[in-house]
């Protein structure tokens, strides 16, 4: 046990600071990926709710593909595909050699694309949960399209979407560990590095698991508070 404290400590030879730094990379990666995913998800949900067949088809295709295909494949696609595209772009500009894509940006994009596919379903469900009378009433008040969306639909949509978004957030947090395969030093990768260099995999993977658990429960509690304690919560009948 003493050994574990020394290995996870903050003094010389301890990995505590490195693990906490890596945990903050995990949080940053997840937050940015989730936020960008909200944009993708919002667009996809809007596409699925449109009358245009083409838009509906594209949005449904996006959601189906990225919810059905393993996240690792998506990550490989972006990483290798992005590197190949960048390298050929470099060659066409007269450069030479291999150009790799930055791992953090690729990871953020991968998480955004994957979580966007899940968030789209949440937003769509939330939109459909809004009573038709709200749309009618907003129209009757003479609000234009943008005003209706901004002042009537969005506030309600967010309330209905919040529980589902909390689930997607938990998914995103755990998915961020997969970004370790493309070499980004987030929590998972840092645990691997420490495990490799000290030959104490058990301690470091347990430590990583506990840190993930801590982040998940703190952020989960924040979502819970938003849902239950906020003054604008949906009143149940």
């Amino acid at each position: 046990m003493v050994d574990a404290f020394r290995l996870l400590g903050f003094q010389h030879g301890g990995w505590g600071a490195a693990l906490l730094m890596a945990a903050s990379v995990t949080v940053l990666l997840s937050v940015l990926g989730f936020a960008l995913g909200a944009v993708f998800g919002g667009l996809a949900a809007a596409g699925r709710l449109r009358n245009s067949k083409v838009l509906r088809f594209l949005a449904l295709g996006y959601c189906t593909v990225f919810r059905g295909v393993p996240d690792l494949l998506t990550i490989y696609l972006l990483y290798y595909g992005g590197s190949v595209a960048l390298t050929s772009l470099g060659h066409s500009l007269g450069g030479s050699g291999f150009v790799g894509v930055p791992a953090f940006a690729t990871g953020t994009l991968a998480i955004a694309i994957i979580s966007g596919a899940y968030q789209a379903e949440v937003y769509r469900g939330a939109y459909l949960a809004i009573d038709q009378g709200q749309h009618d009433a907003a129209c009757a008040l003479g609000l234009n399209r943008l005003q209706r969306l901004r002042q009537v639909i969005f506030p309600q949509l967010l309330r209905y979407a919040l529980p589902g978004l909390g689930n997607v957030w938990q998914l995103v947090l755990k998915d961020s560990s997969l970004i370790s395969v493309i070499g980004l030093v987030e929590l998972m990768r840092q645990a691997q590095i420490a495990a490799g260099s000290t030959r104490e995999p058990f301690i470091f993977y347990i430590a990583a698991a506990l840190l993930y658990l801590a982040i998940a429960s703190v952020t989960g509690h924040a979502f819970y508070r938003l849902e239950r304690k906020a003054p604008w919560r949906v009143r149940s009948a």
Partner: protein
Amino acid sequence: MIDFSFFLEILPKLLAGLPLTMELALTSIVAGFVLAVTLALAQQSESPFVVLPIRGFVAVFRGTPLLVQIFLTYYGLGQFRHQLSAIGLWAVFREPYWCAIIALTLNTTAYGSEILRGAIQSVPRGLVEAARSVGLSTYLTYRHVILPLAFRQALPSYGNEIILMIKGTSLASIVTLMEVTGIAQGLIAQTYRAFEVFICAGAIYLTLNFAIIRALAALEYWMSRHLRHRPSTMSDAAS
């Protein structure tokens, strides 16, 4: 731009990984289901000594990434080689195959038991009381009343969990198992044609998931016979 001969070349290579993907998924889903039912039933107990450890297990396995769980099983427990040898389990934990199956099983057990626990709780109390009042024992009440209704109720959520498990098997490639994603990664690294390999491997997973979704929809249809063609007077009495 799109080269069909390349697709024909990589498709058989990727399909060679499909049996392993399905094996990992099927083993862990079946074993996970049995454990999940057990844990969901055990949580009906009032004793905190039974309920709290299960709650803890569920919270840990739902709150940490599957990748950490696989690494902990494979690399983490590998550290206890001597102790595991002493109890004869080293042969199991030495193999990435079994480690992946153990981690996947425990992961799906945690999610599955929560789904089933919710489903059991959703069975109306009146039905349970009715079953007891006609003289069914606790066992028979579960067997004929609670579980059939709970399984029916759990089916859509459990279906999602099964799809997540199919996707989850891809992580086995990180501990050297060459299932579809592992082979795909190898092909991408060899050929640098990420897009084509993604399309091909993605199509395999989508086909598999689509087949599962259809099979589950058929099962759900079969299990909700009682909800179709129901005389209107009965629906009033039931509600």
